[in-house]
């Protein structure tokens, strides 16, 4: 009985050690990031053209999505929550839609999207995603851009809530005490 208890304790310590070592090893200062390509142009549902540079100074999360993309629709409520929670600390989410504008407008309200939704022809959006490192063109696809315009993270597929929170917290200034 005592032996089993010792094994269990040793295993628990090992799990914690493995987890802690991994976090330490991956919490190093950001490796060389790359500048956001200039000149990426989108249309807005507001009818005005938009460039990602207009959000320079913010921690910018660009989330490409579509109404026909189920994982995208699952992810958006979490993005809405993050925008609400972290806007005051400098987070700005934008959501370029690889989709028909009418379909996007019809989903914007039900999804409660509280950040700008951008649009463009599917071919133009796919081209932009390729320039941003999404060769396969899959969705959802997100990039995180630092306030000084560097791409610091790419994500193809949904974020888990924990991943998203940790990522945003890691790149935002600390909250004022």
């Amino acid at each position, binding site marked *: 009985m005592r032996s089993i208890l010792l094994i269990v304790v040793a295993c628990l310590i090992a799990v914690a050690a493995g987890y802690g070592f991994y976090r330490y090893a991956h919490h190093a200062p950001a490796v060389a990031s790359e500048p956001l390509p200039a000149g990426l142009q989108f249309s807005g549902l507001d009818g005005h053209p938009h460039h990602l540079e207009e959000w320079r100074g913010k921690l910018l999360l660009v989330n490409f999505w579509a109404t026909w993309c189920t*994982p995208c629709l699952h992810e958006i409520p979490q993005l809405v929550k993050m925008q609400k929670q972290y806007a005051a600390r400098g987070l700005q989410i934008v959501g370029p839609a690889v989709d028909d504008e009418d379909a996007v407008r019809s989903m914007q309200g039900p999804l409660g999207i509280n950040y700008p939704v951008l649009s463009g022809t599917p071919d133009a959006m796919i081209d932009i995603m390729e320039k941003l490192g999404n060769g396969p063109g899959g969705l959802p696809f997100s990039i995180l851009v630092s306030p000084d315009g560097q791409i610091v993270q790419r994500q193809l*597929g949904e974020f888990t809530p924990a991943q998203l929170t940790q990522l945003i917290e890691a790149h935002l200034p600390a909250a004022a005490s």
Partner: protein
Amino acid sequence: MNTGALGLAVGATLLSGMAAADGLWPHKDAGSRDLLKADDAFRLLAAEREGRALKVSWDIAPGYYLYRKRISVEALAPEGARVDAPELPRGERIEDEYQGSAEIYHGSLQAVLHWPGASAAPQRLRVSYQGCAEAGVCYPPQTRLIDVIDLSH
């Protein structure tokens, strides 16, 4: 106590801890490394004519699926050629809170098409389809132009 067994258990749980941390901490370029390109995930094999039927086939890679409702075929040549709606097998039914009920296909898929009697046999088709990876990534709708191989002769 068996020292070897203890060492094995500790080592396995150490790795488990690291794996758990890996799952929780996003890689800098997460997800793009393993995703197939659309043409590899959903290989459009051929469009073949045998008698009065056209057969359009796909080979869908393991871990990927196509949506039934996103499959469409249109005749492009010769001028005036038409095809009826594709006949598709029963797919696997899935439910989703946003998309509702849908049928999807894994593995091999074949659609059978016929054309109206007065119409010429189609020689070129526009085939559209859309699918996703089980890993939680969806591809934009794909459209390919494909020539029909006549197996009748």
